[in-house]
């Protein structure tokens, strides 16, 4: 891949004695929509959390837009990133969490405008205008003054998506965005994500168990197993004609 926006180069991640990512190599192209599937505990969330700078790494290099994420250039080679460097890099990424993680004491509008005002320096009016556009996009234009607990899970997650988009990230990370939802609410969230995938040149990285959806919207699907990409490819290939036994087993288990 030439000029990937995200690059994992032999990345090692450990939690104590547990090695979660063992020299992971992984790339995502600009504007590419990539789905990550795989069994629970295989390190899918960890990949997203490393990108969002919520987890550090023990080895290797992660690059975003050609610049190391967890390192910065020192006088004698790469040194661990400072908080200032992380802040700069983080601005390019946004994340949608499994549990939404909305701020419960803030209105929907305030959830979306807080960071654009405080971090990007937008005026309140600008931020409000941007938030209203985004609420329109996720179909919640009339819910701006509500508090999260007054919304359904599906609505809360759509606010979560709007909140992440308000920071204008280049890359949007979704960590099982519909796993915490009642089945009847999954559709409305997937519709929003699907529309984003179709209409925006945003790079999207989606961890999901919604196989049909992953197949529809992805340019590429990666099957994670034990901290490694066991198999990857175009969705038609991977879902219809998986090469690896492990992939076949996994797909059989989740599709049944």
């Amino acid at each position: 891949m030439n000029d990937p926006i995200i690059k994992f180069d032999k990345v090692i991640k450990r939690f104590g004695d547990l090695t979660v990512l063992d020299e992971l190599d992984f790339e995502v192209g600009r504007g590419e929509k990539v789905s990550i599937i795989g069994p629970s505990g295989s390190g899918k969330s960890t990949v997203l959390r490393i990108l969002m700078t919520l987890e550090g790494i023990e080895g290797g290099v992660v690059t975003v837009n050609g610049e190391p994420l967890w390192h910065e250039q020192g006088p004698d080679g790469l040194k661990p990133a400072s908080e200032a460097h992380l802040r700069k890099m983080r601005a390019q990424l946004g994340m949608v969490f499994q549990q939404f993680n909305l701020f419960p004491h803030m209105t929907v509008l305030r959830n979306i405008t807080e960071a654009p005002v405080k971090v990007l320096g937008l005026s309140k009016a600008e931020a409000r205008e941007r938030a209203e556009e985004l609420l329109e996009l996720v179909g919640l234009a009339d819910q701006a003054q509500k508090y999260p607990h007054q919304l359904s899970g599906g609505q809360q997650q759509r606010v979560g998506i709007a909140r992440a988009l308000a920071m204008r990230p280049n890359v949007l990370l979704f960590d099982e965005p519909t796993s915490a939802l009642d089945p009847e609410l999954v559709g409305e969230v997937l519709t929003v994500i699907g529309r984003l995938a179709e209409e925006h040149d945003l790079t999207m990285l989606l961890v999901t168990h919604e196989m049909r959806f992953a197949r529809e919207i992805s340019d590429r699907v990666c099957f994670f197993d034990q901290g490694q990409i066991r198999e990857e490819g175009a969705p038609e290939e991977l879902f219809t004609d998986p090469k690896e036994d492990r992939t076949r087993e996994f797909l059989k288990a989740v599709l049944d």
Partner: protein
Amino acid sequence: MLFGFEWDLSSPATYAASILPILLIGMWVTIQATVIGFAVALALGLIWAVLKAAPFRVISWPASLMTEFIRDTPLLVQLFFLYYVLPEYGIVLPAFMTGTLALGIQYSAYTSEVYRAGIEAVAKDQHEAARALNLSASRTFTHIVVPQAVPRIVPAMGNYLVSIMKDVPVLSVVTVLEMLNVAKIVGDRTFNYLVPLSMVGGLYLVMTLVASAGVRLLDGWLPKQGIPLK
């Protein structure tokens, strides 16, 4: 006669009525000591909590040591220390000031724990959301953590408000004329302790009930999910 009021010992009822104004003056001192002591405890406790949470051991350890020391020594020891030792170093404070300060210091060790627990109870995912949005650490603390911590802190702080109120009589040993001390003086002079002391009990009951009701009201009024921000 005390504070310009005469007592009337002709019957328990007239006695009670005649000393009520005297006890109310003492009660007013008790209320002031409670409020000021509580304010000191809230402010100093927050300082301890921040120091104890500091990432540097040179700061967090002495703070932990201090609060542990305060907690493990009787209020009376601290009170005597402030009242008798400080003047030796040229710091002479009025008895009331010394007393409320001692109360506030004693309870700051407890309130610092309430703050810590309240702050730590704010879920990790809130910190992660704030970080993902690139909010600064200070902004995250003041606008994400604190508003959510407050409703968890209020009930426990309310208990300490009532405890402080009940500890105010300790200040009588350094001559503060709070309600119990006043009642004792009245008893000393009239040789009737039953009526003034019973009245102190009754008035204390009223004060603690009112304080508890106030805390419950505040608690009910604060949304559980945090101080709302529009």
